[in-house]
């Protein structure tokens, strides 16, 4: 314990874990596992929020931890698992870039993220400022995942993981956003997942599949259209 308090060490551990989880998601092709990884990511986020709350004594962080627990650890993964079961999508197709290639790009993305976060980290007065770079990296890695995946479900997991990254960034830079904003964001995310659920059923009803290559008819010149 060379001067660094235990909570801070644990927080840094959480940050490292989040980064590892992002890479795990990039390499994972089983959709069920992706959702599980998302749930784990939510739990790590919950742990980090609680640690930060204990360390700084800011009460609104407990509230925000509750929100994370309810939404990101329990509700969203449950909803996604139910969707997967009812739609019967278990595997993603071969990604546009093979796994090892994606990982290599991912490493470059992390380097870039730390560069991007440099000016912010220097200004930050929070104890967790070193984690800002990791948060940016998580956001960009999720973005990478959304670009390289073909199945709608994986893109959604990427989207939610990006939101987790942003949330972690807000926490490490400023100890969280004002409560009213956090509630609003949480509400939007929840509604987004519900809308997507409806949407998936519509897509499957139409195409018998959730593979997004069906959704490539609308090119610039406009595909031949139905008659009214």
């Amino acid at each position, binding site marked *: 314990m060379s001067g660094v308090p235990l909570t801070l060490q644990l927080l840094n551990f959480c940050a490292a874990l989040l980064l590892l989880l992002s890479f795990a998601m990039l390499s994972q092709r089983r959709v069920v596992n992706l959702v599980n990884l998302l749930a784990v990511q939510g739990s790590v986020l919950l742990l980090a929020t609680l640690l930060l709350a204990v360390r700084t004594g800011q009460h609104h962080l407990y509230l925000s931890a509750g929100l994370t627990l309810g939404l990101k650890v329990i509700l969203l993964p449950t909803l996604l698992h139910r969707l997967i079961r009812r739609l019967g999508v278990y595997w993603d197709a071969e990604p546009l870039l093979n796994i090892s290639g994606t990982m290599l790009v991912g490493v470059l993305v992390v380097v870039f993220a730390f560069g*991007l976060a440099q000016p912010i980290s220097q*200004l930050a*007065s929070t104890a967790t400022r070193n984690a800002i770079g990791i948060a940016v990296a998580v956001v960009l890695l999720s*973005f990478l995942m*959304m670009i390289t995946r073909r199945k709608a479900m994986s893109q959604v997991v990427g989207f939610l993981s990006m939101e987790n990254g942003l949330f972690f960034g807000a926490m490490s830079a400023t100890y969280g956003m004002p409560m009213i*904003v956090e509630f609003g964001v949480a509400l939007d995310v929840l509604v987004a997942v519900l809308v997507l659920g409806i949407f998936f059923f519509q897509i499957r009803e*139409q195409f018998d599949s959730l593979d997004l290559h069906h959704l490539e008819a609308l090119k610039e010149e406009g595909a031949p259209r*139905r008659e009214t």
Partner: protein
Amino acid sequence: MELLILLAAPLTGALTLGLLGARRFAPELNVGFSVVTFLAAGALAVRVVAEGHLVVAHEQFFIDAFNVFLVALTAFVGLTTAIFSRPYMRVEMEHGRVRAAQLRLYHSMYQLFMSTMLVALTTNNMGLLWVAMEAATLSTVLLVTLYRTPASLEAGWKYFILCGVGIAQALFGTILLYFAAEHAIGAEGVSALLWTHLNSVKGQLEPAVLGLAFVFLLVGYGTKAGLAPLHNWLPDAHAEGPTPISAVLSGLLLNVAIYAVVRCKILVEGSLHSALPSKMLMGFGLLSVVLAVFLLWRQRDIKRLFAYSSIEHMGIITFAFGMGGPVANFAALLHMTVHSLTKSAIFFAAGHAAQKAGSQLMDQIRGLITLSPTIGWGLMMGSLAILGLPPFGVFASEFLILTTAMREQPWATPILLAALGVAFAAIFGRVQPMVFGETTAKRLPHPPALLPVFVHLALVLGLGLYIPPYLADWYRAAARLIGGG
């Protein structure tokens, strides 16, 4: 009080229409709620113009000359679109394209969409602005896919993912803004995200962080405004959804997104003391104009054609705000107004034209003028107006923008002029055979509501000929608030 009615009316409307379900009088109820919203917006505008700015509800809402003008415009176009959608959606139902349950969703979401836009416009909290923008996307995704055709599902998916990713960038920008604010004014919790507070301390905000924040905010909200290169969702969403939705997406939502960008620009410019934000706006604006104009040539679908024209006009507006200064801001605000009115009028006319011809493909729409002179002339006049022909208001604003550009940014003038010329050739060449020539049109089971088309065009014509002094003062006040240049 007016504000409460303004925000509560569409929300109550959404709940009522959602609960009541697909009654026969639902379209009338939809119009009714829009009337209430419009009256409240009018009252609010009168009050703000008389009293200057207004800060209410623990500073969570802030209304000044800039946003009250957009509130009034939004409520007005919301009302006329509701009037237009009454016969339009009935025809769609008889053509078997929508069922009763979908119509219930449509009406409920229409009102919800209006309320999210009004919240986005009136809120003082940059975080709430983000929440409302995202909610506006979510409430329209299911409307874009209302017809459940493969093409509409694709459009909806693109809309959701692209705007979702875009808006996530904006959230990061908002976080950075909050971070900079906390750094400058200390931990103040909620108040650190209030625009009025940020505006008063903008000189002390850390420039490095704000510059970074602006990049993210511009990309994020710019995606929603249809700025290139993240404009891909816009033509699809506009072409595949029902026409009233195309009209409000193009006429209103794009404006709200531009509004968000401009609010951020005011803050960042105050902090950076450099021309970086202006240059970025001008660059993105010009890129969008050029890209959209060349893509106009390749369109075969009437709604896609005018969707690309929206991207072009958003580019012009962004460019004008980028130049800044009282004249360019004035012109940009005027352009926002006339573009909203004209573009929604065009979509109304185009929607009925497509219903009559039984297709959205321009090759199959012919000779509108023989069977229905009003639709034919509506489409023709609307197209001439949007192309910037003299007596209409679009000419006035584009003229102002071009002359300012000649003085301030001479290098951009030839590009803009060439783009406007190309757009003229592309759109006029397509619209002319649709309006004149042999007819292919059929009769419709419900008489179309064409009043909104001509009311909008008359207003645009009026604004082109004469801007009433109080309106001009109002625009000037708003242009001063935006500053820059």
